[in-house]
């Protein structure tokens, strides 16, 4: 049974579009099959691109012979790494030394470093032919030893991926706040956990990456139709590498079939398309295949936590922890090592401990490059903090609910400054937890446990949280590389009133299902006094529109703050201009004008009303004899959150603006004979401040929940010792299907953010809550059968069975000492 129950606690504002679940504007075209996704775009004479990819995880590249491919009728041309090395410079590296020395090109140069790495590009008249020709390309590889396990990356005999880096470490740093020695001296118990592992997976959007790229020889400009979700980032990676200014790169997006962060780092492939469009004088079409996506695109960060020590008082008060994080970046640093700082946005999780030390080391391996994935880098860290809580509770005999409530940051402490200077803006974690527990049927837990036992099943309850830090301060990048010149954040919107009174909105964002056209319309409609249906939001991003800035895109839970902040700013400006224009016509003060129902009218005199169409026509088409300084009715606003650069010495500062939370709780039943388990109840309670469109918010919570359940139970990017991906398709990489989903109950509370103009908080990433609570529930269930400690984020049936068979190894992972 699927139950969706929403506990509505916030009153909706009456008569306004905001806060209502208005139908999505996007839906009509999408249910009719009339969306425009990147593979739908065609051009006369376009050539289809197919990549020849490396079958080796690590090899020296010898000679490459494309002649047989070129001879095939219908083949337009090829591109090799040698050409790329001449035509472009390596991509800019975010890392400071040693990672700074990585040389990353659009195609492999000199060496290949993971299975599936693009080596040669072939372009032909048809998709089939491009693939046929690719098979004729001869590449000589000289295989090298392979590094798969990041834990061996610093061994003396470890194969070295990037010789220029003199080792495999891309970034390392120590992050310490508070007084660890004092905390451990004060502690009554120290709980030590020798190793925890957060697994490698990603959100696998249903649409893979792609592009249709045209080159205009007259102007030297490329038009790049793509589904890249962060064009601002793609442009600053591509421009310098291609030795062109950003005005030469027109990036256009339309409908995007899911992103989840996995479509941020397609810039290498886009560069290949650009070079070929210029070389072959024709439009280039590239659509990534599912297998290619799995093998090469944007895996989530795999992370180990070693030698974790937790300082706990006898009454359950958590004082602090120290740990060593080992992050596996894969073969190239495409967005990394930003994962080395992003976790710090949520350093203490939801808890009040003030003493934290984390030694972060990131290692490169012969696996697909990692890049952002829903919940990027925070999910791994929050999993650690939740694991710590449940392991401490398990070992010291605390109730997992009580120890959470005791240590949660309390609502009256909001806004709460964390030990590293981040500010949790608002929230009520204990209340959200109570609602989640209620929805999942916590009060009857022990009876249910007994009833399940009578059927031979082990039942367990688990709690997990997501702290969805949104609206990045890009200044945090300077904490891993002090020389970087990034800080703050921005997003742009333009709102204009056109001749016939149409309200037209352009955004810099690149939505992939988050309904920006709808929520932006809601905000605009309320401010300028019109119906949501009369607001036209242009689909997608186009860098020709002048409605973008350096950080434009859709990523990292920020639209409700940055995007809508920009929309609100531009709408406020337009409202002022409209009132001014109407006041000129009516010869009154702008203060006497109100905007409502599609009219600018004199307050208290409904007869004196100008329809929007009249305002639009006057400015745009009937302006002779108009007074000086007329309004333009075309307003551009750049939203910029109020950030300072964090302190590089203390590593303290406000890393993000808002903190949405989700508390997840679930109940699992384990079959002790096989390790097979089922989630029998699930609840997710969301608090993302003011909700513009509750239905869209709930949809995001559901999606994040499904991703987390998939990652907890089935989804893993597993490699063999030769560096072959064992799960390169949806057979072996099983994602949840309709019948796999547990019954879900959702609830919500609204704690408006004091830091944003609409009270909203970014949300949508919400990664991980389900992973944490499934781990906790399994550990709770296994308590009655050997008491294994759950040490991995990914728990397929065989791992659960192993923990049941022999809980010893997992238990040996944990040690408790009194001080």
């Amino acid at each position, binding site marked *: *049974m*699927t139950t*969706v129950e929403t506990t509505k606690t916030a009153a909706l504002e009456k008569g306004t579009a905001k806060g209502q*679940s208005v*139908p*999505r504007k*996007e*839906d*009509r*075209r*999408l*249910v*009719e*099959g*009339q*969306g425009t*996704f990147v*593979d*739908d775009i065609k051009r006369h004479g376009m050539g289809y691109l197919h990549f020849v990819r490396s079958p080796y995880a690590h090899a020296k590249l010898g000679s490459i012979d494309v002649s047989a491919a070129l001879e095939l009728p219908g083949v337009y041309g090829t591109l090799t790494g040698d050409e790329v090395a001449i035509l472009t410079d390596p991509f800019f590296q975010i890392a400071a030394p040693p990672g700074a020395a990585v040389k990353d090109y659009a195609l492999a140069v000199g060496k290949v470093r993971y299975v599936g790495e693009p080596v040669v590009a072939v372009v032909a008249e048809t*998709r*089939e032919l491009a693939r046929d020709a690719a098979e004729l390309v001869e590449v000589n590889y000289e295989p090298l030893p392979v590094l798969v396990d990041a834990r061996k990356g610093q061994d003396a005999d470890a194969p070295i991926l990037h010789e220029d880096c003199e080792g495999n470490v891309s970034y390392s740093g120590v992050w310490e706040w508070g007084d660890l020695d004092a905390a451990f001296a004060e502690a009554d118990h120290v709980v030590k956990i020798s190793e925890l592992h957060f697994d490698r997976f990603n*959100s*696998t*959007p*249903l*649409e*893979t990456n792609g592009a249709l790229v045209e080159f205009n020889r007259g102007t030297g400009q490329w038009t790049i139709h793509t589904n890249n979700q962060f064009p601002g980032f793609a442009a600053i990676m591509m421009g310098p590498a291609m030795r062109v200014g950003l005005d030469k790169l027109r990036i256009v997006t339309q*409908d*995007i*079939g*899911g*992103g989840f962060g996995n479509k941020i780092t397609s810039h290498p492939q886009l560069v290949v398309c650009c070079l070929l469009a210029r070389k072959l004088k024709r439009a280039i079409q590239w*659509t990534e*295949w*599912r*297998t290619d996506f799995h093998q090469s695109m944007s895996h989530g960060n795999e992370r180990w936590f070693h030698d974790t020590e937790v300082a706990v008082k006898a009454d359950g008060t958590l004082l602090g922890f120290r740990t060593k994080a080992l992050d596996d970046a894969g073969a190239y640093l495409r967005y990394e090592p930003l994962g080395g700082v992003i976790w710090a946005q949520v350093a203490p999780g939801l808890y009040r401990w003030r003493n934290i030390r984390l030694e972060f080391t990131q290692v490169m391996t012969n696996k697909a490059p990692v890049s952002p994935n829903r919940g990027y880098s925070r999910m791994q860290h929050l999993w650690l903090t939740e694991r710590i809580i449940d392991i401490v509770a398990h070992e010291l005999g605390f109730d997992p609910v009580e120890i959470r409530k005791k240590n949660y940051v309390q609502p009256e402490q909001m806004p709460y400054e964390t030990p590293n200077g981040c500010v949790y803006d608002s929230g009520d974690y204990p209340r959200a937890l109570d609602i989640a527990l209620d929805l999942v049927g916590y009060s009857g837990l022990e009876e249910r446990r007994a009833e399940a036992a009578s059927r031979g099943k082990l039942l367990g309850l688990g709690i997990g949280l997501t702290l969805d830090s949104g609206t990045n301060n890009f200044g945090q990048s300077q904490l891993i590389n002090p020389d970087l010149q990034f800080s703050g954040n921005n997003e742009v919107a333009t709102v204009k009133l056109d001749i016939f009174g149409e309200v037209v909105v352009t955004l810099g964002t690149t939505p*992939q*299902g*988050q*309904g920006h056209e709808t929520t932006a319309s809601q905000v605009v409609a309320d401010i300028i006094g019109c119906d949501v249906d009369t607001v036209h939001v242009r689909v997608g991003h186009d860098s020709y529109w002048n409605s973008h800035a350096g950080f434009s895109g859709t990523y990292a839970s920020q639209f409700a703050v940055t995007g809508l902040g920009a929309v609100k700013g531009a709408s406020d400006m337009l409202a002022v201009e409209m009132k001014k224009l109407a006041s000129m016509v009516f010869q009154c003060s702008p203060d006497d004008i109100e905007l409502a129902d599609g009219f600018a009218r004199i307050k208290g005199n409904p007869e004196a009303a100008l329809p929007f169409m009249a305002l639009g026509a006057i400015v745009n088409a009937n302006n002779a004899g108009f007074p000086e300084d007329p309004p333009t009715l075309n307003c551009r606003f750049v939203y910029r959150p109020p950030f300072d650069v964090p302190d590089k010495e203390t590593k303290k500062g406000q890393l993000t603006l808002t903190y949405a939370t989700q508390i997840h709780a679930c109940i699992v039943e384990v079959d002790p004979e096989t390790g097979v388990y089922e989630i029998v109840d699930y609840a997710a309670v969301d608090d993302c401040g003011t909700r513009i469109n509750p*239905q*869209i918010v*709930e*949809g*995001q919570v*559901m*999606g994040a*929940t*499904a*991703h987390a359940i998939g990652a907890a139970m089935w989804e893993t990017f597993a490699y063999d010792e030769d560096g072959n991906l064992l799960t390169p*398709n*949806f*057979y072996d990489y099983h*994602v*949840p*299907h*309709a*019948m796999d*989903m547990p019954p*879900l109950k959702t609830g919500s509370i609204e704690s408006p953010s004091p830091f944003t103009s609409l009270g909203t908080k970014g949300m949508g990433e919400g990664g991980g809550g389900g992973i944490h609570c499934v781990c906790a529930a399994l550990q709770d269930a296994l308590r009655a059968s050997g008491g294994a400690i759950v040490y991995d984020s990914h728990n397929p049936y065989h791992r659960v069975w192993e923990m049941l068979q022999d809980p010893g190894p997992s238990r040996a992972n944990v040690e408790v000492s009194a001080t």
Partner: protein
Amino acid sequence: MSEPTTSRTVTVTINGTMVEREVATSKLLVHFLRDDLDLTGTHIGCDTGNCGACTVQVGGEAVKSCMMLAVQADGLDVTTVEGLAGDSGVLTPLQRSFGEHHALQCGYCTPGMLMSATALLEHTPHPTEDEVKVALQGNICRCTGYWNIVEAVVAAGKSGSA
């Protein structure tokens, strides 16, 4: 007598219109629809027949058009998402229900979902939640977690015909 060839003329009735084309025998139905006929509502989400984004109806049954050659559709009726509302532009109750229940986010899986669910509603006009899940088991959605999709199909069944 039928001797092997590498291309054939096929006659297919697509969304009610008869189409006659010469196609390569190696061409998949999904590429015939998308590339040759410009019916780009039918999507591709995998290489292995798992995802269902390419689902269309052939001869009244839901099938995955990436595991069928275009020549295998010769002489058959094919319905794609573009054929649901048809030229009238009036959405089916199922299409409306998807919007009402927020059963789509990015919309990439949606055409396939609609085709599977339409086939279900034709056979089983008032499906239960479990019947809906079974009918949609071959369609992957990465955005919604399925709950709203299942709800939308059940509701469309309650509201009457597909």
